[in-house]
């Protein structure tokens, strides 16, 4: 079995490193190994690689290069933004977020609660949508920061972050968005929004794992999380991971030039898969908000059967790699907090499968899933004691 045989539709989990990205990294893993902070001319190439990568990241976001801070991952960016706001917004002791955030935000919020910070979790409806009027009620003069994801990793919902940023600012609060799943998949222009902080992660857009970035709006008060050296203009200590940063810069360049393809070709593959599965598998349930959803994500439940079984049989049949919100795939014994938050009934809750595409997918991948999955659903339902009434 080789990587060519893999039908990889798990791009919200991670993506393959683009060949161009790999090429852009190689010099800094081989010959150009100087520390960009060093005074000698040998440091010029790595230093200028960091500069141009920062410009590429900024260009993808509609930001300025000086608004970009490189971090190690999306989680670090999230932690930095939220902790920074609590530090700088003295006298304000509340965080407003949602019940469907990534654990990078939720676990931090639970931790902060133990230390006396008040956290309000906005609920979602059965399509995973939050209510702006509810947000207006909850965001108040005590709120230091509002943190709402740009797009949900499991169901793909896009959230009204621009409106939320405005509401937050009306109340004097800062606004952060975890955009790890959105960057590179939907056009983002931060120059037209009031968003203060935006987190992104390299490995979700064909850069390697271990690199992230935090956008910090110019003039937004900021407090450094990782203390130490003067790197990133004192905003994040640690010697620059030059190769990873160069990789992220290249990945952002590529993402900018392919952003149209995400809305057209990638979306078309996702839509064809959705139509095909709904037509060929009885009793399907597509999760999320069809009106406001990432173009690459399909989350679908097959009632009466369990997600891990579906995934393992899909891999066995055609090396299909997808993901599931079932308890058994996580090892946590509880199914996905997102699917529970949208109030899925128990017949459906354990049988969710998430397909997430990238520009490296082909129509043949959709064919492989459509050829395989309906039979697997039939077989597993024949094994199940439920669903016969």
């Amino acid at each position, binding site marked *: 079995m080789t990587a060519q045989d893999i039908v990889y539709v798990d791009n919200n989990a991670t993506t393959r490193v683009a060949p161009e990205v790999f090429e852009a990294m190689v010099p800094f893993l081989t010959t150009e190994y100087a520390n960009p902070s060093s005074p000698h001319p040998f440091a010029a190439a790595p230093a200028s690689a960091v500069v141009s990568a920062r410009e590429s990241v900024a260009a993808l976001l509609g930001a300025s290069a000086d608004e970009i801070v490189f971090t190690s991952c999306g989680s670090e960016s999230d932690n930095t933004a939220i902790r920074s706001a609590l530090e700088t917004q003295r006298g304000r002791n509340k965080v407003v977020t949602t019940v469907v955030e990534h654990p990078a935000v939720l676990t931090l919020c639970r931790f902060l609660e133990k230390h006396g910070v008040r956290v309000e979790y906005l609920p979602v409806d059965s399509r995973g949508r939050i209510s702006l009027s509810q947000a207006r009620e909850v965001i108040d003069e005590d709120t230091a920061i509002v943190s709402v994801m740009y797009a949900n990793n499991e169901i793909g919902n896009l959230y009204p972050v621009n409106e939320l940023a405005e509401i937050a600012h009306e109340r004097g609060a800062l606004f952060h968005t975890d955009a790890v799943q959105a960057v590179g998949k939907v056009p983002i222009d931060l120059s037209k929004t009031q968003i203060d902080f935006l987190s992104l992660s390299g490995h979700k857009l064909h850069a390697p794992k271990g690199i992230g970035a935090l956008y910090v709006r110019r003039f937004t008060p900021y407090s450094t999380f990782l203390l130490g050296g003067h790197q990133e203009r004192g905003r994040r200590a640690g010697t620059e991971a030059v190769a990873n940063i160069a990789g992220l810069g290249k990945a952002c360049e590529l993402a900018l030039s392919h952003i149209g393809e995400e809305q057209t070709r990638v979306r078309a593959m996702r839509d064809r898969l959705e139509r095909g599965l709904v037509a060929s598998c009885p009793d399907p349930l597509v999760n999320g908000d069809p009106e406001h959803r990432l173009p690459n994500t399909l989350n679908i439940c097959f009632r009466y059967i369990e997600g891990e079984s579906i995934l393992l049989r899909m891999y066995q049949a055609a090396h299909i790699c997808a993901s599931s919100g079932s308890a058994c795939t996580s090892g946590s014994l509880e199914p996905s907090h997102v699917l529970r938050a949208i109030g899925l009934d128990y017949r459906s809750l354990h049988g969710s499968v998430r397909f997430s595409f990238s520009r490296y997918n082909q129509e043949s991948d959709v064919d492989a899933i459509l050829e395989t999955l309906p039979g697997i659903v039939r077989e597993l339902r024949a*094994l199940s*004691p439920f669903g016969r009434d």
Partner: protein
Amino acid sequence: MWNYTDKVMDYFLHPRNVGEIADADGVGEVGNIVCGDAMKLYVKMSPDGRTIADVKFQTFGCASAIASASALTEMLKGKTLEEARRLTNQDIADYLGELPEEKMHCSVMGSEAFDAALKDLKAKHPEWEVPVPEEVEEGAERIVCHCFSVTEGEIRKVIRENHLTTVEQVTHFTKAGGGCGGCRDDIQAILDDMNGQQARAEETTAPAPSNLTNLQRIALIQSVMDTVIRPGLKADGGDVELIDIDGNDVKVRLKGKCAGCGAALQTLKHWVEAKLREKVSGGINVIEVK
């Protein structure tokens, strides 16, 4: 991604004995769709009621749940009820080579399904000699874990049959404690009860001076607080006040920088309590009062 043995994958991908038996002599049903796994086991006996003639199953669950159920059906066929009754969840896991510990609850579901089938057999066929699983467990029907509806009897059974010693293991084998976690203390109490008092006994016969009177003990605690603990905390701008001593519970109030410090609980448990255990008695618990 779980590391399943080839045999688990084989029994998952090619399950044996799937389906229903319309005229089954006994049917055992365990788990439910809320919990994420469930199993129905159909048993058909030989005409004289002595040996198991046929077994079929239906399972809703993950790969290891399906494999465990399928393995169980093969293991049961041809056995007498007495032989079959002696099979444990560990036998199912062994038959499959190995199950990841986090998935042992799948094998437990198999043995519970057979216990349920035996009860049904007994009810439907009073004329046969059906060895019913004895319910000698203390508080057997009491629900300990409400998230996954696990009874004390089920927990005691897996602890006994698998020699479990930690709450985490009990969670892997029964799921109990794996939801909200509210019952973990309860599970620990059951473990303590079953695994004897030795663990706690070791803890309480610490290096401390023994045979202290109550007054001596209180004086010693006060002295350790004043000469060791408070100077240590003061060095970091904090302080602590002794409020009360009730048996092994030492109640303290944090002051100075310690009050409201995020790491204070860690300090209390890992340093203040450890010091008192070392200098006074191994059984001491430090409790913060606000």
